[in-house]
């Protein structure tokens, strides 16, 4: 590439546009970072450049102030991470089982089933919460662990979409795995279950990682269902807990909220780093496979 084209493509205004766009994009996140370290904990006292820095906001999340309210941040954090990991795992498992059936078996109602699963996702789920609430309430009378204010109940409700939400994505990937591989395994005497575990799933690691990642991050961010099913503050997930900081007193808890928001990002980032390796290795594998 000649110097002249290089110069033209690198024109100063392009960089200017970029920096304007970036400053708009990062302003809110940056503001959260500074608010978290700002010694003035209120919204009115917050500014982009804090007058003095402090770690008090973070400390306040973990240590109960003398005479202050009980601090539940660690419980919320633990609950969110546990439920997100479990949801990711079971979503991948259940989704892969279903996608395998729809990809590899031919059975009556298969086409209709797939269309149906597509269609029910377009139903606005918000009002379903009433019925879900009633179902969870009644189930709790029989199996307490699946009742209201229980994280296990929340997990089970989250898992209700495991089959439908990712079916088309996973099935598409499974379809791209050559049927000859199944065929040769079957000739060698493998059962469908063995083909599923031994042939399809190992080759599908990229799509499993992506689906698991979506489910993991999605759970960490889920708000409305949790707000309907979880009742007491000690059982909250992170989103509910953080919202409770500013829900009642927007002005005063701004610093704690900002600090909590920063810490709340950690699981998703770790999850992404952890899975990224598999996504990349999985993708290169796919290309070598030929």
């Amino acid at each position, binding site marked *: *590439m000649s110097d002249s084209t290089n110069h033209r*493509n*690198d024109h100063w205004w*392009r960089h200017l546009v*970029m920096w304007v*766009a970036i400053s708009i*994009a990062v302003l*809110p*996140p940056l*503001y*959260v970072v500074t608010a978290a370290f700002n010694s003035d904990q209120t*919204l*009115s006292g917050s*500014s982009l450049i804090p007058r003095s820095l402090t770690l008090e906001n973070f400390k306040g999340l973990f240590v109960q102030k003398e005479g202050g309210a009980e601090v539940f941040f660690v419980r919320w954090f633990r609950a969110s991470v546990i439920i997100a990991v479990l949801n990711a795992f079971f979503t991948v498992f*259940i989704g892969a*089982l*279903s996608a*395998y059936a729809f990809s590899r*078996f031919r*059975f009556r109602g*298969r086409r209709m089933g797939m269309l149906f699963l597509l269609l*029910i996702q377009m*139903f*606005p789920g*918000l009002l*379903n919460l*009433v*019925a*879900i609430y009633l*179902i969870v309430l009644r189930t709790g009378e029989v*199996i307490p662990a699946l009742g209201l204010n229980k994280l296990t109940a929340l997990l089970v409700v989250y*898992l*209700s*979409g495991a*089959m*439908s939400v990712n079916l*088309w994505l996973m099935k598409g990937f499974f*379809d791209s795995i050559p049927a000859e591989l199944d065929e040769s395994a079957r000739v060698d005497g*493998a*059962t*469908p*279950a063995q*083909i599923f*575990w*031994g042939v399809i799933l*190992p080759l599908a*690691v990229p799509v499993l990682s992506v689906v698991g990642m979506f489910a993991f*991050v999605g759970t960490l*961010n889920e708000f409305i269902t949790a707000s309907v099913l979880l009742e007491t503050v000690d059982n909250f997930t992170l*989103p509910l807990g953080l919202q409770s900081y*500013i829900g009642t007193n*927007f002005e005063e808890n*701004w610093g704690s909220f900002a600090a909590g*928001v920063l810490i709340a990002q950690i699981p998703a980032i770790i999850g992404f780093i952890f899975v990224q390796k*598999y996504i990349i*290795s*999985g993708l290169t*594998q796919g290309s*070598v496979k*030929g």
Partner: protein
Amino acid sequence: MTQAAQYRPSLLARVISLFSGVGGLLVKLLLLCVLNGITGWAIIVLFTQDRIAWALGTIAVLGLIDFIYLVPNRFLPAKFIIPGSVLLIAYLIVPIFFTINTAFQEYSTGHVLTKAEAIDTNIEQNVVQGDRFFQMTPARDASGELVLVLVDDTSGQTYLGRQSGLEEIDSTTVSVDDFGDVLPPAGFTALVGDELFAIDAELAAFEVPLDNGGVIRTEGLSGAYDSVPGFEYDASSDSLIAADSGVAYRDNGRGSFTSADGEELVVGWREYIGFENFTSVITNPLVRQPFLRAFVWTIGFAGSTVLLSFAIGLFLAKVIDKPNFRGKKLYRSMLVIPYAIPGFLSLLVFKGLLNDDYGLINKLLPFDPPWLFDPWWARLSVILVSVWLTTPYFLLVCMGALQSIPAELVEAARVDGAGRWQVFRKVTLPLLLVVVTPLLIASFAYNFNNFNNVYLLTGGGPSTDDQAVAGATDILISYTYKLAFESGKGQDYGLASAISVYIFFIVAAMSASGFLRSKALENMK
């Protein structure tokens, strides 16, 4: 090097394949045992709660599942689909049917009970004072239970009133002392002084049920009167008859008892009313106006969000998408930051940023727009914040799509003498739209139901001049939510469900057009 030698499964892949042998079978059996354990316990509980039908149904389902999994080499698709299906049916399909069923009912504030419950509630709540008054002395019997010793003021007949009912006793066993206080019969100790004041609250709540459906309540510490039900249910005419006036309130077929001159009892019940919830969106002006306003705003909001985000994303992609552009990767990763942050957190942060008194944005601006408190500023806020959240997605999409456009086509247009703008209009954009249109439609459908962006930022407010449930920034789904869950003017769950069904058809139609364009359905081989 052969291909086989190059193939190195990742650790995760190798771990997964361990389950293909005995391990997987053991896991399967273990899961089946856990399922049987939990469900078996649930069945026992159901039986002890006398919910026999539920118990038998659960046994049938569990038996079927066990059968399918334990018979080898048969029902193969079912073996793979059951785990997802059970959860799907219980927590997704049943709720959807529940919602659709509700759309055909009058189910709103004042119409939440079943008819039988509504009849009972009306009879219990509307008590009128009867014509009997009693002298009363609280006493305790031998076992310490609280008993009211009662003397009817008019007839002089004496009674023992317990929580279980009223018992007539011989008048001679009860005497009245010089102060007019009733002395209890032998075996009962009258409560006096501090003892009496200590059970003040208990006494006030004490009710002696009567055979006619009324009760005897205490009044003060030494009196009692009877209350009789204000209504009597007449099964033959299916109406409630007022005890005092004799006016009949008939079942009006819409979940209420109404009198001949149109008076309606407050407590009604859920009743099927056909398509009325659906048609009221068109016929009832009180419903139609907020619905139409929310509908138009939903389209305006979703449309402008998608178009602006796409336009800005495409512009930034065109700016950055040059070979040898320095800092390309850095710019891109910084521009994607809004996409990486959980949406609901960003929205809460923006709510603080846009606060018109303390918010950072008004501190930076030379003037103070009432971002969230004026209808049009609030609408602008919702759109701008949504664009902020959505643009990174379209930046990524456009950067990918631009690279898929063959450079030869652009070169050819250039050679033919087309200017930059012409090339963009006539070559790049049409080719780009082929790829991006399904995504634009999908994004529109997503924003059409983007509850969070509206609800967390403005709560649907500010309210409009007509004080309808739908505020200035309420889109259909947040309007529906408010109707169902938090309207201060009375919840209308039936109407909310009907609107949900409308939304379903709108979104399904949009998604269908997107799917047809992307030809995804052809993959259903």
